[in-house]
């Protein structure tokens, strides 16, 4: 599978698609980090502890995902990876919401 979504033979430019990587990291990464941090609030902990833990985790996860979006070898790989994290964590939140 061609993860770079490039025409075969076209050389890869350094730091390609900065805007695409930014959107993946900042927006989708933001959604993913909130979603992952929200997963923590479902742990059987007191509300104050769960909320503090989730708050402290949300920003580092977000920054790590933006970092990954630029670290990945192609912008498409960054999108795929972040989307792969986002979807299951959103689904887990939804499942817990309806189960609670």
């Amino acid at each position, binding site marked *: 599978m061609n993860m770079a979504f490039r025409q075969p033979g076209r050389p*890869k430019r*350094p*730091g*390609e698609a*900065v805007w695409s*990587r*930014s959107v993946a*990291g*900042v927006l989708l990464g933001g959604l993913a980090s*909130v979603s992952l*941090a*929200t997963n923590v*609030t*479902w742990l059987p902990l*007191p*509300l*104050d*502890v*769960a*909320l*503090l833990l*989730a*708050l*402290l985790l*949300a*920003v*580092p996860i*977000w*920054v790590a995902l*933006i*970092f990954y*979006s*630029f*670290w*990945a*070898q192609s912008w498409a790989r960054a999108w795929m990876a972040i989307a792969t994290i986002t979807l299951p964590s959103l689904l887990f*939140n939804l499942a*817990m*919401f309806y189960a*609670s």
Partner: protein
Amino acid sequence: MRAERGRLAGLLAGHSWLGLICSWVLALVFLTGAMTMFQQEIDLWEKAPASLGSVEQPRISLDRILSATPIPSTVRDKRVEVLLPGAKSAFYHVYVYDEAGDYEREHAFHPVTGAEWPDPQQSYLGEFLEEFHKRLFLSEGRYIVGIATAVFLLNIITGLVIHWPKLTWRGLTHPRLDRPRLRWLDLHVSLGIFALPFLIVITFTGTLFSFSVLLQQSLVAGRLHMNPRPAIALLAPHPPVAELAHIGMRIEGTDTLIADAARRLQMTPTRVSLLHVDDRAAMMTVIGEPEGSFAREGRVSYRLSDRSIAQSRPIANGNALARGESVLLSLHYGDFGGFALRLLYFVLAVAGCILLATGNLHWIEKRLAQPRLPRGLHLVAGLSVGTCGGGMVALAGSMMAARLLPPLWPQRADAVVSTFVVLLLASEMVGLIWRRHPRRSLIGLLAAAGFGYALLPPIDWLVFGARLPTAIAAGDWAVPIIELLSAILALTCFACARWLRRDPLQAVTLRRTKAKRHEVVEG
């Protein structure tokens, strides 16, 4: 190896572009944040000479302040919140509300004489700088600041990954100032590394605060089934509930209760909250913080009719969220230490502004080395000049306005804020209009700002006369502290302007050297 190079190129592109876009917001946030470290001193300085000599003097009692607070008879269920003079406030600030209506007034009283300050909202500079630091004085600006701060945190990490393998002690302490492209990079890396712990703490806590309301609501929305009240109650605990008795009762002896709460919980009282004032069901809550530790909070609520304790929340009993947030707040504002720590925070925040400026200059230098100049180069240079120089000019101008405008002028606060905004926008215009001569614009702006800061101390001594040395002798250092900050900022501006005048740096002249042109032609 090739993959590694590709990754580093991605990080470098993200570091430089995201850093460039966010630098204009962050430079202003860092500058105003540096001043926020001394918000109480700015408040006292702005209220001088009336405030001179109010520190370290015996305070007037709260009973007298409350009896002097005018409350109209139309207010049925009175609630009074008092900010006590101390680390959080220079004067007694009394906020009167009607629990049953929409009445809301703020009064300020001198902590020693008890004289009412005519319009407390007109001495607004310190509060304005904090508002600008938090949300750029825009209604939803906290999210812009939050995103810019998160990107800055990311840039610290990407900067470390990119430059860590090349770091040497000699490289950090001896920047190559004679090498056009490398001088900015060396200065940028040195400042970033030496200020690293401060920058990480500031950016992490800053991002968290910018998004805290949004995060708190969204994080527990599912668990609490969209009812945010339990989460809000964790941060703002309800005082004990009491119904109005509709029997009049004069409030007395509040100072004794404040002293009792301070002794009982070993804390320094900072706020007092009074419910059902002038009614037999009146309640008084004393809120305070322990000295010399991260900001933890204790509170004791008293029934004023029989002076019994209705609720006591010792300092160690706060919930994890409230204690966690207050620790983060203390780390961000540096109020867990003394004057030296706040001055260190101030210097490091100004160094943060210089870090951003050197980053932008390096960005421009790199583009100047390319065979074809990018289209937006002049725009970037103009915006960088307008923001870095303009922030300094706007701050100097607003401080000058705060010092020179009459304290009782009804439009004073608006004039101080307008001075800041107009000077900032005018500087951006200067940067953009003369974008082909950024060096000249930047020198002009920095020199103007430097003169503004340098003039503040002589004006203070001229206006206050002999009252200033008397106040200093009595232990009131608020005005000299602001003068010290003005002197540091004046020296920074003059030093940068002098360097720019003596050394025609490429990045601010936007002209390539002859040698470089030859290199480009030969290449």
